[in-house]
Each structure stands twice: as structure tokens, then as C-alpha cells.
């Protein structure tokens, strides 16, 4: 896939069907880096660390011309940054994430796992330290941040273990964010990947606390299109698999009001994060991974500035 097509722009469900999570994540990141043009910032450290083969999209400024002239090999110089970014990806694995609005789409959790893996790989390739916190009503697993490439293997393994699912009755993103802050130790980047079907207030408090501690906070709000548009038809009893909340409704009658409510909820979440100094992005599960990855990468760039 490398060089000819960009996996980050593929339909996520189609891409996911092609391989395991780490493979897909690599394709996505490779594609993403291929399409990445020259960054307005110097993303690499100033202290040389090692060489690596040149990959399309690499900044030519870091191409080692001497080696290219002597050995006819294209390598780029990599530098050890003294102030490595420490990032923690906080992934929601609650039952509500294991849902999809159409068979042709990924569940929110499957989408989020691949996005998390890709993001972690992207950060690790930037020599950032990446950790992982999985949560539902409580924190299910914690992987402290490391900058080694082996960290990515551990992270993917942790994601695999989380795929078994949970039977939690709610998700507590606020607590998970605070736990993640403890893992980072010093100011870093905390990325919340969740469907945010939880109360706003604890999250709001957590975001404020994290920002007060000097952390950058970004939220990738995973939303299935069916959740946003209510594309069902007829009369039915709508049941929340997480909380058990059951709502009888005639879709044709309530659709407009529902859309307005969802739009208001998304606006509320955006306001919550922005007001708290964080970043917020809505990620639709039918959108290619490139889009959210770009937004997350932008958050990383801002955080490292």
C-alpha cells in the first residue's frame, strides 16, 4: 500500500478488513506521513540519535547527503529530543462503544482501537512517549508512556485484551482522565477517545484539573452516523445497552427533535473542552482515519510548541 495508495484515506471498515490492528495502524500512519507536507515547525530534535531509511514525506532537510553520495543510500538523520512529549491515550471501552449503526461500519470501539494504535505509532515515530489508559466505569488498564518502539507492541497487546469487552453499566471519563494525569507525571498530552455518552460535569472538572496541571487535553468524540441522524424508522423501544435506559419513540415524530438534541449535546461537549482549554473533535466512524489522525497530530504539534 505504501507509496501508491494512502491508507489513511481509505474507508475505515474496508481497511480494517484487510489486516490486524497493528498492520492497519502502520498503513494508516505510513499513508498519513506520505501525505504530510513540510511542517511549518521543526518536528525533529536537534541532538542526533540514529539514521533510518528515508520514507516518502520525510523532510529533505534531514536527508544525510553524505551517506547518499558515499553509499548511494537514502537515509535521514534522527535526533534525540531532550524534551520528549509524553502522551497518554485514554480510550473508552465501555459497552456503548461496542455498537455500530450499520453492518458496513466499524463499531465505535473497533474504530477507536485502530485510531488509537495509529496515533500511538505516529507519536512513537516522532520519538514521543506514548501511554494508554483504558476505562469504562473504572480504569481497566494502564500502560505508562514509553518512547521505545516496543511500546507500540505493548500498546496493541493491551488493546487486544480490551477487545473482550466489559459489562460496565456506565463510563467514567473524568476519573480516567485524572488517572491518566497521574501516569504522565509531568505536563504532557492527554487524548480522550470516547463516545462521551457520559455526564459532562465530571469530565469538565477533570479537563480543568488537567489544564491546571499543565497538560494539554484533546478529545476525539467517536460518533456513529446513526447516532447523529437517528436513521431508524418506525416505532420502537430504544434501549441503551450500557445504562439500560429504555425509551419508546416513533422515529418519524421525534427525529427532528433528536437531531437538535444531539447537535446541542455536541456543542456542549465542544464548549466544555474549549472552555477548559482543551481541543475537541467529532470523529464519525465512517470517516477515514486520516482526518482524526491529522487533528490529533495537530494537537501534538501544538502541545510540543
Amino acid at each position, binding site marked *: 500500500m505504501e507509496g501508491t495508495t494512502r491508507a489513511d484515506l481509505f474507508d475505515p471498515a474496508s481497511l480494517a478488513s484487510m489486516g490486524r490492528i497493528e498492520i492497519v495502524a502502520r498503513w494508516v500512519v505510513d499513508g498519513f506521513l506520505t501525505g504530510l507536507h513540510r511542517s511549518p515547525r521543526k518536528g525533529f530534535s536537534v541532538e542526533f540519535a540514529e539514521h533510518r531509511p528515508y520514507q516518502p514525506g520525510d523532510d529533505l532537510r534531514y536527508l544525510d547527503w553524505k551517506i547518499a553520495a558515499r553509499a548511494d543510500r537514502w537515509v535521514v538523520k534522527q535526533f534525540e529530543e531532550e524534551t520528549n512529549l509524553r502522551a497518554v491515550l485514554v480510550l473508552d471501552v465501555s459497552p456503548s462503544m461496542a455498537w455500530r449503526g450499520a453492518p458496513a461500519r466499524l463499531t465505535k470501539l473497533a474504530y477507536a482501537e485502530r485510531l488509537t494504535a495509529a496515533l500511538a505509532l505516529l507519536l512513537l515515530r516522532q520519538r514521543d512517549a506514548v501511554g494508554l489508559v483504558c476505562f469504562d466505569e473504572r480504569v481497566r488498564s494502564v500502560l505508562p508512556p514509553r518512547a521505545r518502539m516496543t511500546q507500540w507492541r505493548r500498546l496493541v497487546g493491551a488493546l487486544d485484551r480490551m477487545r473482550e469487552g466489559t459489562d460496565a453499566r456506565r463510563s467514567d471519563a473524568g476519573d480516567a482522565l485524572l488517572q491518566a494525569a497521574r501516569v504522565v507525571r509531568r505536563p504532557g498530552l492527554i487524548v480522550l477517545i470516547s463516545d462521551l455518552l457520559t455526564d459532562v460535569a465530571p469530565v469538565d472538572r477533570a479537563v480543568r484539573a488537567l489544564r491546571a496541571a499543565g497538560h494539554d487535553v484533546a478529545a476525539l468524540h467517536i460518533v456513529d452516523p446513526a447516532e447523529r441522524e437517528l436513521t*431508524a424508522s418506525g416505532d420502537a*423501544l430504544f434501549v441503551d445497552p450500557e445504562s439500560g435506559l429504555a425509551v419508546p419513540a416513533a422515529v418519524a415524530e421525534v427525529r427532528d427533535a433528536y437531531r437538535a438534541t444531539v447537535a446541542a449535546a455536541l456543542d456542549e461537549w465542544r464548549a466544555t473542552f474549549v472552555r477548559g482549554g482543551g481541543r475537541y473533535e467529532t470523529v464519525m466512524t465512517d470517516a477515514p482515519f486520516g482526518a482524526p489522525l491529522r487533528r490529533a497530530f495537530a494537537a501534538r504539534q501544538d502541545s510540543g510548541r
Partner: protein
Amino acid sequence: MGFLAPLFLALGLGAAVPLLIHLLRRRTGVRIEFPAARYLARAEQEHSRRLKLRNLLLMMLRVLAVTCIALAAAQPVSGTLGRLVGAGHAPAAIGIVLDNSLSTSVIANGRPVLDRLKAIAVRAARGATVGDRVWLVTADGRTQGGTAAAVASAIVRTEPLSGAGDLPRAAAAAAGLVRSAGVADPVVAIVTDGQATAWSGMTDLGGVRVVIYAPAEPGPANRAVVAAAARPARWTPRGEVTATVQGTVPPGGSDSTTYRIGLGVRTLARGTVAVTPIGDERTARDRLAAGVGAISVHAAPPERGWVGGSVEIEADELRGDDTRYFAMWIGEPPAVASDSSAGPFIRSAVDALVANDRATTGAAGQGSRAIAIVAADHLTSLPALIVPPSDPVRMGAANRALERSGVPWRFGGVQRGEATIDGIESASPIGAAADTGGRAAPVTASLAYAMVAQGSAPADTLARSANKPWAVAGPGYVLIASPIDPVSTSLPLRAVFVPWIGDLLAQRLVGAGGGLGGAGNGVLESEPGETLRRPAGAEELEAPDGAVRVLSGATIDAPARPGVYFLRRAGGRVGALVVNPPPRESDLTRLATQTLATRFRGRSVLAGTDGEEWARAVFDAHAARPLARIFLVAALVALLAESLLTRRAVMRSSGGMTATRRAA
């Protein structure tokens, strides 16, 4: 409000469907996993009032639409509501009675009244719709049903009758037709000239609505020959033509007209006659005496056999009654052989008749056509005028002679005592006896022999005395009960004697031309189209233009055209059928509309003089009107509103959502 198809109201049960859906929609069994149920709950909570209102409105619109469709299918009709919002009219059964009697052929304002009536009737026919049932019934009882266009066409084609028809009967027939249609509001629509004589009695049309049009203006002036006759019906060869002319004569004024009497193809007489007012009940003799309104022409024409004639006056606005027809048989004077046994008075009478060319002398006997006038005991052959013998001793010989001659009567015992003879005047078609009746001394009989009929031989009793036959007539004979002398009867002393003898000879004993016989002496009088009993022996009917129609059955339908038609047997004329319009049709006096309305009995009766209003009234502004269209429009509006209310939702319902319990 009523319903023409009430069974369709059952469709109204369909209105319960949206109601049940509305009530049961929260009890649906479909369960969908939906993590964002919290947003759904919040949406319902935040918009519950608006949602409930919209749901209620949708439910009401749907119930309204279904109910309106059910009501429309049931074809509602309403009076009060229909007048406010209804359109068209309820399915109607309309019987249009078009007066096309002779009186409607009168020219008024430059065109026949019938044309005007037809134009008005056509409006009603063309106002009918597909759901209506329409019939046309004309004055002669002819009925045309079918589509409105067919009836309108039939109206346009209608021609005036030559007679009066029977309008009350036509109206009753129309009422029967519209009642049989089974609609809620049957109506008989009558278009007439309002002639008083046509609507003289009460016409009961039962439970139907009656709408009448009649012209507002009075009937035009008219003159008519209301009677014409040849007297006697058999001329030998002398006779008299009498006619009566009546017309519209202003009070205190006078009127006259010229006339022409035609006989066959020639003119018999011309003259001027004063017109008597219509309704003048005076007799012809009285009118003749007064010198007005009556025509009397004596003649001895050369024609022989059955002859038709006419009396014509100047043409006026109503042409159909300006000519009246008559017919008579004209033959040679009867040959008479008077025997002395009949007495001197008979002999004198015969001499007087011969002197006036009303008879000729001949020789009686076998093989002779001469009429013998004899005493019974001298009777040897027929035809004969037979009187009793003057000597009672000869009575036995008289009865034997009667038996030998085949006369089915015998003389019985003598009866003495004066008794009035009734019926002598009836034997005189001219009516001379009638003219003297009540003023001259009656004819009496002092001596008369009882006359005993033998078997059941047919015979006419010409006169009676003491309620017993005094003069009887049969084939070839006339038998008198008293000897003709002043001792036995006063008849020879009366002025009627000679004419009566002459009439007996001419009317009863002349053999040729008699043919059909009967009360009219072979002349039948009829109105156009009237049904008559066919005279025995009449085999064919010869029209004035010479066309011959074979007769069959017991009755004859008189031709529609006035004129003289001849009855034929074995190729020869044996009688006449004289067809004339009824005199009452010449009286163009019209009833006022209010008076005309009182001549009908129905569910409601409305009479007017405005054609437009009449045509509207046929479809009755007060009757129920259909509301189906209104309900359909209401249903359409309800469905449109429902569609607008749900349009956005429906447009976005094309997608679907699949619930997944949990991703693997």
C-alpha cells in the same frame, strides 16, 4: 342529512385505525439497542409538548381524512347544509310532461307556443346529470327515457298533436315512472300552455314533487268549427250539412267568418257565418233561429255512395281546428210500393214523399228492391213497412204471413187505452221531433197489438208505448204495433208523420249502402289517436290519400291526422271513420298559474311563468344536494395537511438503522 349509499358508512370504521395506532404506538414490541438513548429521552423530554401536539394533530387529521372518505363514499345529501356548501344536485328522477296538444300549435308572438314550451323543457333535460333519470311523456302518452341528451333530442323532435291527448293521464304516467326510480326526490316537471279544458279536473300525482310552467299571457283569440255533421247519415239523396262555429268574441261585440263546405273534391257551399262565443251551449236549432254560429246547408248532391266532406273557415292562429270533417252515405231515393191494406194515411204520406223526390214508386214482390208498405196479412216479401191489419180477425193470417216472410215477430193481444209513444223523434236524425218536444202534443197510441219476439233475432226497438215495443226494425223490415189511422194512433195527425215515414224508408229499409248499420248508420266519430271498437265487417281502412290499411283485432286506433277515413269490406266502402279534434281543444282559455297549481295534488306543487326559474326549480333549490365532493375535498385537505406535517420526516425515513447487540 341522508345517504344514498349508507353501507359505505362502514368504511368509517377505518377511522379507528389511526386512532388505535396513536394509542398503541408506545406499546410496540420492537426493541433496538441504541447507546444514544439518553439523547432520545432528552429530545422527547424537551420537545414533549410540541411532539404531543403534533401527534395529536396528525392523529386527528388522519381520522378526519378516513371519516371524510367514508362519508363521501356513502354519498351524503343534505338540504340545509347542501344549500350552503353542496354542489350540483342529488340524483333525481325527472318526468318531463310536455304538452303538445293541438292548442300548443297556436301561433303566438310569431311562433308556435309549442316551440317555446320545447325550449323550456330542453333546459330541464340538459340540466340533468349522469346520475339522474329522465323521461319525456307527451300528451298522447308517448314516453321516451334514457340519457339527458336523448330526452333533449326527443323534446326537440316533438310535433304537435292533432288532438287534445290526455295530459292528466300523461302526468300520472310520468309520476309512476319517477316513483319507480326509487330516488329520494322524484319530480314531475310539466310544461304546458295551461289550457283550462286540458286541466279541468284534479290530477293526483301522489308523493312526487310537481313543478309546472305555463305562459303568463292569456290564450290568443281563436275561431273554430266545433261541430259538423251530415243529417241524416244516409242521404236519399237529399240531406243537410250543419256546422257550428265558435270563437273568441269580445263581450258586447260580434265576429263573423267566411266558410266553405266541401264535399269530396268540390265545393258544396260558401257563405259567412256569425261566430258564437266559445262555451255557447245553445242547440243548433236555437243558434240557427238566432242566426249566429250555426251553418245549415240542404243539398241533393249527385255523388253516390260513401262520401266525405269538410267545413272550413278562414285560417287563424290555430290552424288545426279551422276545418272539420263529416261523412255520409248518398243513395237514390227508395222505391216504394204502397199497398191499400196499409191504409189511406200511409198512402198519402208516400205520395208526399214521392212528390218531394224523397221516394219513388215501384212494384213490390219477389225479386224487387221496392219497399212494400202493407198490412201484415198481405205481406209477401221484404223489405217492407208492416202495419197490423185493420180487421182483428185477420190477425192469424197476419202472423202466418210474418212467419212465411221470416219476420221474427208476432202480433199478440190487443191493448186499448191511450198511451204516449216514445221514440218517434229518435227515428228522425234531423231532430224535427226534438224541436217540437215539450211544445207540441205528444204522439199517442189508443190501440196497439202486443209484439212478441220469436227467438233471439236481432232487432232495434224504434219506439215504445206503455213501455212495450211499438215500432221495431230488423233486417229488411219495420213492424208497427198500431194500425195507421186516427182511431188507433195520433201519429198520422202529427207533422212528424211524413218525415218519420220518410226516414224509416231511407234509413231502415233501403238495402244498398247500409253495410255496417248500427247507431251511427255506419259513421264512426273519433278524436285523433282514440281507440275504438272495430265494427263487425270492417276489414280495411282507406285513408284520404287512398292508402288502404288492413284492420285486425277487436279495436281500431284512430289515425292521428284528422280527416274522413272509409271502412271497407270486400273492396267496397261500408262505412266511414271521421276523425276531428275535440271541440274543447279550440277553447284556448288559460288558467292562471295559481289556479293551475290547485289542479294538482303532490308532495309539493309549484307553478310559475318564468322558464329559467322553472328549470332551476326542477332540480329544486330546496331539495337535498350531494355533499360527496365537499367531503372529498375535506379529506384531500386533511391528507395534504398531514403530508405537510410529516413531509420532512417521511423524506428522511428512507434510511434505516440496524441494531447490533454488541460487536464481536
